[in-house]
């Protein structure tokens, strides 16, 4: 029998209730989704059943995971962070500026690190060979960008507002508009791949991927803020989105760069 939105809604509600009960019983706030989150069907066969083995990094400051790969100016080109300039013509869609800071858990900026993004075009179509959604491709938009954070941890992209798109988790499943982010910290332990959403999207409650973050406050941290100060006159609307990297880093090691 085909899985309906109502089925998924019930599962999402059950997961939320279970989290509420864990909190009421004194369990810690869950900032991260659980890998085992059945409303997102692809997770069912792809999450480990065994708990992860903990490594206390304080026991060994030499762990290679406490260091990060380096990226530099030669890994990007000047216009990589302007996705509207990667083809001859202008992409279709509402131009946006997305900017924010990359921070660690101590609130310190992560400097000179790589931020990669990818997204659907304004019609909700990825320039990807396996994408089956029949919305139009835009010959002037690939939807891939890269940049390095500056000395205050800032990144900035110019792109177009991505469209929502259907997927096959269940019947009538739609992803809210989002931009995928991949970021590196000052330690490999802080590696993060995530998605940024736009404020007030009516699809939020129906999406099992966003709802996999069952903590309300944590989920809000995935949603950018409209920032009029970032809007560029006669050009684009501005969104602000800061990222805070989880995971330990080598706080006792002098930053070499």
């Amino acid at each position: 029998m085909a899985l309906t939105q109502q089925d998924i809604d019930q599962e999402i509600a059950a997961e939320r209730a279970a989290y509420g009960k864990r909190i009421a019983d004194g369990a810690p706030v869950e900032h991260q989704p659980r890998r085992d989150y059945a409303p997102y069907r692809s997770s069912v066969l792809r999450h480990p059943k065994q708990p992860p083995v903990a490594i206390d990094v304080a026991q060994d400051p030499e762990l290679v995971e406490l260091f990060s790969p380096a990226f530099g100016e030669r890994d990007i080109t000047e216009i990589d962070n302007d996705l509207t300039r990667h083809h001859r013509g202008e992409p279709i869609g509402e131009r946006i500026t997305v900017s924010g800071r990359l921070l660690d858990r101590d609130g310190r900026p992560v400097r000179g690190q790589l931020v990669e993004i990818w997204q659907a075009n304004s019609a909700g179509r990825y320039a990807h060979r396996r994408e089956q959604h029949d919305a139009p491709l835009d010959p002037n938009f690939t939807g891939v960008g890269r940049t390095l954070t500056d000395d205050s941890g800032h990144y900035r992209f110019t792109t177009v507002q991505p469209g929502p798109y259907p997927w096959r988790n269940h019947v009538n499943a739609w992803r809210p508009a989002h931009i995928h982010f991949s970021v590196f910290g000052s330690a490999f332990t802080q590696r993060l791949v995530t998605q940024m959403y736009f404020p007030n999207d009516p699809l939020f409650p129906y999406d099992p991927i966003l709802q996999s973050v069952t903590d309300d406050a944590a989920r809000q941290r995935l949603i950018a803020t409209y920032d009029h100060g970032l809007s560029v006159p006669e050009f684009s609307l501005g969104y602000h989105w800061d990222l805070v990297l989880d995971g330990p880093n080598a706080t006792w090691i002098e930053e070499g760069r």
Partner: protein
Amino acid sequence: MTKIDTSRPESVLPTPSHTVGPFYGYALPFPGGGDIAPVGHPDTITVQGYVYDGEGNPLPDALVELWGPGPDGRVPTTDGSMRRDPSTGGHLGRNGVQFTGWGRIQTDADGHWYARTLRPGARGRSAPYLSVCVFARGLLVHLFTRIYLPGDRAALAADPLLAGLAEERRDTLIAQDGGDGTYRFDIRLQGEGETVFLEFR
């Protein structure tokens, strides 16, 4: 909510992870992503394997990142893994001379991946290993694991992580020697022979 107030530690809370999804293929992988070793380096090893799900089916859409020290145990601080051509915007890739220690490989349609890198040296109290970060559709938070190389039994026995694991779980972290500097390392996300995954605290 998404402008983080760094003046109050209690408001500096982590950004949740999300799946890499199915459509990163034209964004994250890059040519030569798994050719980490400088060309012709005598300490080059090949690591290769499959990524499997809980039913033993290979994942055609997993992304594996490798990060390791050089043969002398030193952590590379060199950029240039994904060098670009400033005029065309195309990928030049690594220059074949410098060792960045980091690579990124997408599994192919058979769920297979490979990388050529330098044999990692030992650091601290650990036996030599490559750090691995696995991403995939369906995986809401990436997974860390390690590839230890077989051979030095004493070093493996003394490794703080391996020493704390039951034997059959421990073996999931040790690559199989395929001869001629090649090693096989399969990643099982779930079920029988499930790979040991790590959490850093």
